[in-house]
C-alpha cells in the first residue's frame, strides 16, 4: 500500500519512545501520553523537560516518554516536582497523575503546590477509578458507579460525593489555568491537546500553576469495551464533571 508521492501527516512524536505500552486496549493514558509528547515536541520543550509520574497505571511512563523522569511515591508528585522546579527553574517540569494520586492520597500536595503557584504543569488523568490496584473507588468515582470497594455502587452517604478537585484548586491564587477536557472523542482529544499546550505555555511564561484534567476511559476496570467506556464518559461522567474552562487568569487572548 505504499504510495510514492505521499506525505506522512500523522506519526509518532519524538517525545514518545517507539515502544509498546503496558496500558490496556482503549486506555486513555495512552492517548494522553501522545498528546503530552506532541505538545512538548511542538513547543520544543523535550530536552528541558523533567517529568514526574507517581504510582498509578502510569508509573512506568518513564519507559514511554522520551525525556528525563523521576518516579514519585504515590500522591507526592507535586512535592517532588516542586523540589525539582525550585532547584532548576529553567527546566520544564510536569507531573502526570491519576485521580487517586492527585485527589486522594496526594490532596495536600496538590492543593499546596497549586496554592504556592509552583511553575509546574499538571496533567490530571481522571478515570474515576483506581486503575492500577484493580478498580477500587476513587475520590472521583461518580455516584452509582460500581467499583470493587463499592460493590453496590457509590453512595454519597456512605462513601462521600465525587470530589471536584479542579474546582477546588481554582480557589488557589497560585493556580492560573485549569481546564477540564475529555479523551473520549475525536473532538475531545483535539480540545485536550489545545488545553495541554496552553497549560505548558503558562509554565513557559512563568505565570503560575496550570492543570488540565482529562476524563479518561478505563475499560478494564469499568468492565466495558473501549467503545462502551467512551459512551459511559459521555452519558455518566460528564454530568458530574462538565467539560470546559474552570479558571483562567493568564490574560492570554482567547484561542
Amino acid at each position, binding site marked *: 500500500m505504499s504510495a510514492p508521492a505521499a506525505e506522512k501527516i500523522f506519526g509518532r512524536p519524538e517525545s514518545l519512545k517507539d515502544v509498546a505500552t503496558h496500558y*490496556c486496549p482503549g486506555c486513555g493514558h495512552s*492517548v494522553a501520553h501522545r498528546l503530552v509528547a506532541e505538545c512538548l515536541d511542538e513547543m520544543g520543550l523535550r530536552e528541558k523537560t523533567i517529568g514526574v509520574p507517581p504510582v498509578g497505571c502510569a508509573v512506568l511512563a518513564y519507559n514511554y516518554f522520551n525525556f528525563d523522569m523521576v518516579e514519585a511515591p504515590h500522591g507526592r508528585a507535586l512535592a517532588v516536582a516542586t523540589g525539582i522546579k525550585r532547584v532548576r527553574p529553567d527546566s520544564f517540569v510536569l507531573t502526570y497523575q491519576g485521580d487517586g494520586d492527585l485527589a486522594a492520597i496526594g490532596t495536600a500536595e496538590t492543593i499546596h503546590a497549586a496554592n504556592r503557584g509552583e511553575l509546574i504543569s499538571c496533567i490530571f488523568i481522571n478515570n474515576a477509578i483506581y486503575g492500577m490496584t484493580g478498580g477500587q473507588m476513587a475520590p472521583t468515582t461518580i455516584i452509582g458507579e460500581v467499583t470493587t470497594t463499592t460493590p453496590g455502587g457509590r453512595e454519597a452517604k456512605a462513601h462521600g460525593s465525587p470530589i471536584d478537585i479542579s474546582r477546588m484548586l481554582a480557589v488557589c491564587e497560585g493556580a492560573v489555568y485549569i481546564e477540564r477536557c475529555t479523551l473520549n472523542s475525536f473532538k475531545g482529544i483535539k480540545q485536550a491537546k489545545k488545553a495541554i499546550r496552553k497549560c505548558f505555555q503558562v509554565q513557559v511564561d512563568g505565570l503560575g500553576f496550570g492543570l488540565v484534567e482529562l476524563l479518561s476511559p478505563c475499560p478494564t476496570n469499568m468492565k466495558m469495551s*473501549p467503545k462502551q467506556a467512551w459512551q459511559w464518559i459521555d452519558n455518566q461522567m460528564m454530568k458530574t464533571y462538565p467539560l470546559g474552562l474552570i479558571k483562567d487568569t493568564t490574560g492570554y487572548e482567547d484561542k
Partner: protein
Amino acid sequence: MAKGYIKIDRDRCKGCHLCIDVCPRKVIEVSKELNKTGYAPAQFIEKPEDGKGCTACTMCAVVCPDLAIEVYRAK
C-alpha cells in the same frame, strides 16, 4: 481515487477498535487473524466497495490509543 491512506502497525494494535468506530469512511475493519500479542487488530480497507476510500482525515490516528496508525496524504 482516495485522497489518503493509513498504515496500521498490526502488532502494536491492541484491538480496541475505536478507530473503526470513528472512521467516517468506514475503511477500517477487524482483522480475522490475531496478532502476536493475541489481539484482533484493526486493518485498513484499501479498496472499499464504494470506491471512495480514506480522506486522510486523521480521526482514526487521533483516537488510536496505541499510536498504531500512521496517516498519509496523497500528493
